[in-house]
């Protein structure tokens, strides 16, 4: 399944309608749906936040086989930002020192499998897999 979304947080509802349609068609478990929604939200909002005036919509492709969900998110106008690269998020800091920055990408890295990033001609392509249990 494929769909494109404008670069605004207001599109999140449409993004979730898209993932909901996909998970219902394939009878995907609640747990996998949660991780799919979380990963897609974190990556989509990251693209919107750091390049709100970029040209072109953000495109999502979801596919399914019996063992896993495959996700690809494409931003056609972006500076390189490798979301698969490990970044320093110090989770052991005290409450006073903790900051939410970077947490979303960290969670994506923890929760999905085979997270990959490509950047060419200003186009970023992020892909990952979600095993079905």
């Amino acid at each position: 399944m494929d769909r494109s979304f404008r670069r605004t947080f207001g599109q999140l509802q449409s993004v979730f309608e898209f993932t909901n349609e996909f998970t219902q068609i394939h009878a995907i478990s609640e747990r996998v749906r949660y991780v799919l929604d979380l990963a897609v939200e974190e990556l989509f909002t990251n693209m919107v936040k750091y390049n709100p005036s970029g040209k072109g919509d953000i495109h999502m492709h979801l596919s399914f086989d019996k063992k896993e969900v495959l996700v690809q998110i494409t931003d056609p106008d972006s500076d390189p930002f490798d979301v698969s690269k490990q970044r320093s998020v110090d989770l052991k800091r005290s409450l006073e020192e903790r900051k939410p920055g970077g947490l979303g990408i960290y969670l994506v890295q923890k929760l999905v499998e085979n997270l990959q990033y490509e950047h060419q001609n200003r186009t970023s392509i992020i892909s990952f897999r979600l095993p079905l249990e």
Partner: protein
Amino acid sequence: MFEIKITDQGDVVLSGRLDAAQTDKAMEVLGRINESAKVDFKELQYISSAGLGVLLATQKRLSQSGKRLKLINMSKHIRDVFHFARFDMIFEIE
């Protein structure tokens, strides 16, 4: 659909989905909390890092006056997110 309300006892009840498009609404209500309070997650289906950030900011503000949030009735999926983010070290989760 995300809803947040404060009960007569001063506790917070969350329901629906707390995503990045809902943080202003959550922050506006949580900003009214000035005492230690329970936050009931029973009807909350989903939270992302944006929602975690709102709770973190509230916990930081309350801690300056020795107050804190206690999170209750969390689903397994949400509890897992708190665990991966190590937010279970910052909040008391019942």
